[in-house]
């Protein structure tokens, strides 16, 4: 059975969807809870297994509107892990979805993009 996990959004933790059948992951909301370390550990543990498979093409939509400084590190760590696996046969697309006014998120996306070599990283500005 392909792995699937969905978590409801709270004030301080984001909505999370991992849908292995669709080779898809999504984050949406705000991340600043003390538990974000554990939250990302679960994702990283799943990625460790998933990225070893022949998934073909995987898409991660990041629509978080705010994350605190410790989550910034966790997110980069996760993206670097994805970047290590991304290749011609394992295509990884990251859509960094934000509104233009969210300067913090736009700048963070630009800074992350510079760190990544193999991922197709798109900054998607929405209304």
């Amino acid at each position, binding site marked *: 059975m392909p792995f699937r996990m969905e978590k409801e959004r709270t004030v301080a933790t984001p909505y999370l969807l991992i849908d292995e059948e669709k080779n898809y992951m999504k984050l949406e909301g705000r991340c600043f809870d003390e538990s974000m370390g554990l939250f990302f550990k679960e994702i990283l543990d799943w990625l460790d297994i998933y990225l070893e498979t022949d998934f073909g093409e995987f898409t991660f939509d990041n629509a978080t509107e705010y994350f605190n*400084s410790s989550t910034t*590190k966790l997110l980069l760590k996760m993206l670097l892990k994805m970047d290590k696996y991304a290749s011609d046969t394992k295509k990884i697309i990251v859509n960094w979805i934000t509104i233009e*006014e969210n300067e913090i998120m736009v700048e963070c996306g630009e800074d992350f993009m510079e760190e990544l070599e193999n991922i197709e990283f798109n900054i998607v500005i929405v209304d």
Partner: protein
Amino acid sequence: MALNLKQYSEMLKENSVQVVYSGPIWSNGIASMADMLIKRLEYDDMPFRASQAVFSVFVEQINNMMMYTAEKEVRAEGNSDPKEMPMGIFVLGIKENNYFIQTGNLVSNANAEILKSRIDHLNSLDKESLRKYHKTKVREEDNNKDSKGAGLGLIVLARQTRSPMKYEFVRHDDEHQYFSLYLDIR
């Protein structure tokens, strides 16, 4: 004699203070305080850019206080083991259409020195240098588990403030100083 609330509320008004919180700061409490703050910012109808900056400074500064404060209360939260609860005061105000955040907490002499040198350094950097410095630190601290993100939070503050961060340390006793930080939000 009870607290003179009329006087107190006039004093807050004179100083353009909108929100005050004084007492223990704990992780579950932060979420509810943040929730209240988000609603307040929506009510004030501030541009997204400003409210995002206020929110970000709020989260990082509360976190800094939890990390550096010397005054702690030990209390059990729910069914978990007793925890040390950092104490502090947090103030949000609006002066001439700009938000400011002021915080106060007790720190050890050693932490006072660390804070002083870090803030002075950050105050000396311009916007672009702060962005680069932040970027380096995000990468770097990944390998340093002991740092608990310390330092990164202060950089976020520096990036979201309009003018240099103002601070004051007042002697409390031989080992502690009272640390006040004043931040003008961009």
